[in-house]
């Protein structure tokens, strides 16, 4: 026989007893026996779907059965089963700070503007005021940030911060729909903020013109309720994740590559974080960025709007948040799939015994050479004109082109040997560390990674051709097609 302790408020459903003796081989059997005997108790403990209510924890003696064998946990004579609610809370995530009370009403213009929200009971006046009181931070005003900025502004999110320090480039316009042709060369922050104010003048757009770093992330994030990750590199992704976990703020995550995207909400109400999914970053250079691998221009629209939808749901507190589920989108198959994500109890940042308790050096964590090494690589840059001279002089050196074969077809330097960056780690044996090597790509980004990778592998006479094939076309051979 096991003893089940009944919490005070439930005793009215259990014959006013404070404990009940029941038999059963497992915790599941004991609970079934309990609810069979006291039918009214069932509705208190289980929801309509027959699952334990979210706030109900079951303990065997002093252990949570979730960490034993759950319902199948064996019960011995004299064991005690306790029903313990899980309780948490706090001042609102979407806070009504004294300075900006959420009860401040909506103006006539706003009432008209948000009419299609206001007539839905799930949003209504209360929801629209929550949106107005909400403070949301977009990390990045690029592919994902563009649709996010447009729609969150239109929806009436009261304060939208943007972290970005880039300028609009012609090659951005294929997907970053918040910027226009006339904005090329302008700061992305100014261009995005201008467009958002044009869409909705009631929104305060806060510009953070910095590269997000371990030094400034907590300070920037602390003033926001929700952080949206629209970044395209691993160090920043881990940085955003860790800062969100440390501050207890939800991280609305999205990522895109070529024709596929992912989205989920990390670090929300005890759910998993990015590190639960990816404890370690991939080796540098292995996963190409969109600048290297390309991306379907429409893809960030789809993924960014999934992030925007989740953000609005979190603010309104409606629906089922995308927590503990990784949504995978394949544009070519036009298919969505869902993977279950679990919180890793051993997670170094959100697990039971966290080892990461403050922000670290994420460049180093992701295996990217730290600042001095990167500067050394810049010193080793070589101008395309000099490369041309070396070729003409028949200097003994090897020129490698680390782009993809289809890029090579568009235009190339005949002297160069093609070794795509992704294949480089496997093909190091084709190269001689004693040789002088110059690497080039389209613009110099990937070849810088190749140079770093070669140096790490012990190659010493490696240099990066500054500006890539674009600079080659400008300075040496205009017949080489630019793209």
């Amino acid at each position, binding site marked *: 026989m096991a003893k089940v302790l009944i919490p005070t408020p439930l005793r009215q459903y259990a014959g006013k007893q404070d404990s009940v003796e029941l038999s059963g081989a497992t915790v599941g059997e004991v609970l079934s026996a309990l609810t069979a005997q006291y039918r009214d108790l069932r509705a208190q403990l289980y929801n309509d779907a027959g699952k334990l209510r979210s706030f109900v924890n079951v303990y065997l003696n002093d252990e949570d059965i979730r960490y034993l064998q759950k319902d199948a946990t064996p019960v011995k004579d004299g064991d005690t089963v306790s029903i313990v609610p899980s309780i*948490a809370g706090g001042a609102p995530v979407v806070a009504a700070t004294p300075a900006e009370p959420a009860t401040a009403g909506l103006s006539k213009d706003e009432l008209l503007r948000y009419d299609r929200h206001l007539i839905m009971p799930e949003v209504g006046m209360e929801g629209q005021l929550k949106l107005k009181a909400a403070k949301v931070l977009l990390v990045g005003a690029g592919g994902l940030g563009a649709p996010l900025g447009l729609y969150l502004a239109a929806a009436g999110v009261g304060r939208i911060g943007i972290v970005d320090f880039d300028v609009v480039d012609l090659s951005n316009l294929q997907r970053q729909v918040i910027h226009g042709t006339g904005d090329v060369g302008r700061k992305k922050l100014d261009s995005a903020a201008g467009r958002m104010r044009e869409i909705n003048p009631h929104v305060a757009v806060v510009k953070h013109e910095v590269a997000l770093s371990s030094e400034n992330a907590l300070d920037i994030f602390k003033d926001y309720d929700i952080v949206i990750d629209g970044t395209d590199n691993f160090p920043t992704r881990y940085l955003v994740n860790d800062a969100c976990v440390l501050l207890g703020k939800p991280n609305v995550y999205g990522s895109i590559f070529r024709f596929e995207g992912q989205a989920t909400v990390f670090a929300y109400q005890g759910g998993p974080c990015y590190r639960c999914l990816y404890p370690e970053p991939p080796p540098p250079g292995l996963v190409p960025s969109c600048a290297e691998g390309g991306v379907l221009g429409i893809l960030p629209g789809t993924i960014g709007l999934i992030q925007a939808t989740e953000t609005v749901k979190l603010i309104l507190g409606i629906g089922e948040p995308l927590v503990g589920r990784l949504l995978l989108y394949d544009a070519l198959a036009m298919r969505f799939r869902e993977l279950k994500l679990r919180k890793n109890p051993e997670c170094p940042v959100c697990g039971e015994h966290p080892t990461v308790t403050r922000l670290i050096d994420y460049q180093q964590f992701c295996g990217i050479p730290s600042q001095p090494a990167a500067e050394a690589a810049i010193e080793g840059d070589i101008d395309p004109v000099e490369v041309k001279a070396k070729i003409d002089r028949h200097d003994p050196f090897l020129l490698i082109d680390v782009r993809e074969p289809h890029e090579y077809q568009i235009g190339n330097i005949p002297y160069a040997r093609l070794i795509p960056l992704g294949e480089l780690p496997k093909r190091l044996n084709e190269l001689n560390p004693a040789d002088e090597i110059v690497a080039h790509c389209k613009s110099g980004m990937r070849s810088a990674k190749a140079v770093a990778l070669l140096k790490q592998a012990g190659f010493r006479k490696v240099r990066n051709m500054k500006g890539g094939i674009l600079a080659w076309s400008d300075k040496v051979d205009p017949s080489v097609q630019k793209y």
Partner: protein
Amino acid sequence: MIRIQPDAWREMVAHALATYPHECCGAMLGSIEDGRKTVHIALSLENASEGERERHYELRPADLLRADKEARDRNLDLVGIYHSHPDCDAYFSTTDLKNSCPWYSFVVLSIRNGAFDHANSWLPDAEQTKAEHEELTY
């Protein structure tokens, strides 16, 4: 209706002021007669939230289990949970609601600039969709 005895009330306010600007949390032990709750003892518990404790609290189920045992040992009942809202109203926030349980009274103490401001008691429903205001005296 919930009435908090002077000693327990002093204990709760002192706890909320001591943890300011962080949120505090604890259990209220007492008795229930004809639906009227009386709190005799306030048991301060640790805020186990790993996030921003200025804006969040979390009770360890094990601590709650201990509070329940403490109540049983003293022939009292666990009747409610209290927590503080530093520099914020004593209302039942969405976060409170989404992590609540309908079995207890939830007393929220508003602390402003390090001083007690006001308090409210709330009774959340089983679906965690709304909380009713409960009459509170102290």
